[in-house]
């Protein structure tokens, strides 16, 4: 098992170097530079331009910039935003809890609903329930997030008034930031009703963000379950006279889950990229909007640092998923 873990961790390092180089190259390859964007319609003189470039370190050759950047990253310094002049890491840490809160809730929604629907569809294969689930998941998968979000918002928030339109919290509550997670901070504060308000604010964004992963998980669970349900050992279990419930939960699901877990791990990337759109629609103060704005402003440190941090999280989650196979399926950890 230890060898397995070390080998998996060893594979992370080249991926990490690749991502850092890619993020750096990508933002520098896009035409337009931050200094010109700062000048706007007004423009600037050659002297002002040179001063600003020197201040931002953009006057050095590009490969020097890259190695300096990597050197700083290895020491834990992701640089300072050109626009706000705040350290990238501190901006990220301020905004990231909101994104995590949203992504985790969306992931829970996607997994619980997706797994349940997938299992039900597989068990009642070919029936009305199966067809309904497959239609829902196909529709969910093809739903453009922006449109879906606005649709739900107009229906539930504007017309029915059941949920708040956007944001993380009603303006009447005064919540001090302790952990950055609104669900926890509202419990820590003595504002009555604030926790309920925080939950209400989470409902629509979580559903919108979780819809596509939910559809993927439902379809994957269904097909994987169907495959397993046709195996000989299931027939044996049936022949032994085990209850249907026991066969499905104990024998079938456990084996069917392996590909599903892989898919769930891959959904983290999808969730984080989807979060960018969802955050924009619901005015959710996470890292999505921060990254999009920094691209149009050519705020190199924020784009590079943000991409690197997100990539790190995706790599780590998938590492965790890989390690989890080992737990779920002994064959994986013993293979060389």
């Amino acid at each position: 098992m230890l060898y397995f873990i070390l080998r998996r961790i060893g594979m992370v390092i080249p991926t990490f170097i690749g991502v850092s180089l890619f993020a750096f190259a990508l933002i520098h390859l896009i035409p337009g530079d931050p200094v010109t964007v700062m000048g706007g319609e007004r423009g600037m003189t050659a002297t002002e331009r040179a001063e600003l470039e020197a201040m931002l370190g953009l006057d050095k050759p590009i490969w020097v910039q890259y190695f300096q950047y990597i050197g700083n990253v290895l020491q834990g310094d992701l640089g300072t935003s050109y626009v706000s002049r705040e350290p990238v890491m501190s901006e990220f840490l301020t905004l990231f809890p909101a994104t995590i809160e949203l992504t985790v809730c969306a992931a829970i929604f996607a997994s619980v609903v997706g797994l349940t629907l997938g299992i039900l569809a597989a068990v009642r294969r070919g029936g009305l329930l199966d067809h309904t689930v497959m239609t829902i998941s196909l529709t969910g998968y093809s739903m453009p997030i922006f449109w879906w979000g606005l649709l739900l918002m107009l229906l539930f928030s504007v017309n029915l008034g059941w949920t708040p339109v956007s944001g993380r919290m009603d303006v009447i509550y005064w919540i001090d930031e302790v952990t950055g997670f609104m669900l926890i901070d509202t419990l820590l504060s003595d504002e009555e009703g604030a926790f309920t308000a925080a939950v209400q604010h989470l409902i629509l964004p979580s559903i919108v963000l979780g819809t596509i992963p939910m559809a993927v998980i439902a379809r994957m669970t269904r097909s994987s379950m169907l495959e397993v349900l046709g195996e000989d050992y299931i027939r044996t279990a049936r022949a032994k006279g085990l209850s249907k419930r026991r066969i499905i939960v104990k024998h079938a699901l456990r084996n069917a889950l392996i590909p599903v877990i892989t898919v769930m791990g891959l959904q983290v990337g999808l969730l984080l990229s989807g979060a960018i759109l969802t955050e924009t629609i619901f005015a959710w103060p996470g890292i999505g909007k921060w990254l999009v704005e920094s691209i149009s402003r050519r705020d190199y440190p924020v784009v590079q640092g943000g991409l690197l941090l997100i990539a790190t999280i995706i790599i780590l989650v998938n590492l965790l998923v890989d390690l989890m196979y080992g737990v779920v399926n002994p064959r994986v950890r013993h293979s060389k």
Partner: protein
Amino acid sequence: MRKGLSLFAGAALATAMATSAAADTFVYCSEGSPEGFNPAFYTSGTTFDASSRTLFNRLVEFERGETNIVPGLAESWDISDDGLTYTFHLRENVKFHQRSDFRPSRDFNAEDVLFSFNRQMNENHPYHEVSNKDYAYFGYMGMGEAIESIRAIDDYTVEFKLSSPNATFLANLAMDFASIHSAEYADEMMEAGTPTKVDQTPIGTGPFILAQYRKDSLIRYVAHNAYWEGKADIDRLVFSITPDASVRYAKLRAGECHHMVYPNPADVAEMQDDPNINVLSQPGLNVGYLAFNTNKEPFGDERVRQALNIATNKEAILEAVYRGAGQIAKNPIPPTMWSYNEDVVDYDYDTEYAKQLLAEAGYPDGFETDIWAMPVQRPYNPNARRMAELIQADWARIGVEAEIVSYEWGEYLERSQNGEHQTMMLGWTGDNGDPDNFLNTLLSCQAAETGGNRAFWCNEEFDGLVQQALRTTDMEERTALYEEAQVVFKADAPWITIAHSVVFEPVRPEVKGYKMSPFGSHYFYGVSLEE
């Protein structure tokens, strides 16, 4: 700042809210997070709304809803006959904000004025390098060169000496960057070793006190009870940061905010039909134009420029591109600005006459050229690409074949500043409400050298009028000079003046007393909520 800032204890505020259940909270759905809270560093209206217009005052102010200058922290001022010395008589009994982390021991006085300007002007000032940012507008408006010295004559009199007569000086002092900070707070923070707090959580004399800021989420203010013009009608002001226009609209409809900015043009008609929304509108302080590069043939010939002006159907552009949210521009300055010349006659759309002019200039069969179109939406031009297509079709009718060119925004600005274009679209939004800010910045001979003048047009008569107006302090005289300059501009036609956009601001019907600012800023003192 990592954990967001909170300057009032939550419990204290909760108590305050419980005791005055009827306390009015005004919620403004803003479009983005401010870059910071010291307006001297920044240039965006989003930042000014959140900082200078709520937290601060200036020596002089723009009258609410107008572009003219009224007394602010200076009750009155004298200008010497040579136009070189400005003496300001300061208002007494003006209180600074009081917060849990700062209690001012004295009222506003000359020391605060000196601090606020010297910090920006004097490189050796202990605060000059704090926060390590540029003093953007101080530089743009040429304040460093304009001001020779500032001194306090006594506690309530400050004298500015200028290096040359500059009629825009007063208007510049009403701009956001000239906001007056508390010198006492700055001293205290320097002693405490936290000087950057002066920029992050500043203390001013303005109608609202900064209470809490959470990036991309909200900004909270409470009314300044001891405000010198009287406490604001609303007790609390919240900026609910909502980047998407459709969502701001949804929040306004659901009653989650009282006022929103920048609606989608497509939504305006529906809003106007909604009894629960009042749509305010006003022409913006801007102009969208197409500049001919007069350094390149055939645009050195004014007959060619006139012909293309005449060949362009602006009515159609207004309809298709601005969709009612604009008005045709005939002058390079907007109609809300003083000295706007009503008598200037615009070029009428007339394809036949345009052809004739072009033939006279030696191009009976037209010529090939380019039209540069911005890749981004700007306040003065919602869709440059579409506009370029319409102009392209208009010009084709007189034989001028234009290719549409576009670059990424930064690239676009840089290449056009270098004069790589033949014709290009751009625009301008005013800074200080002074015509000089358009005519000198965009069309002077000096601007042709620095690139601000994208037509590279240098007309001695026009330039003479504009420079003379800058040295004159008499308003009537200045008005006459600018009116004449607009006539010269129109005849020589270095631009096609296309349109001034119209700005819409939807508010809930319970909002009373709100006045739109011609500068496009948002100002909530004087606003009240009616049940």
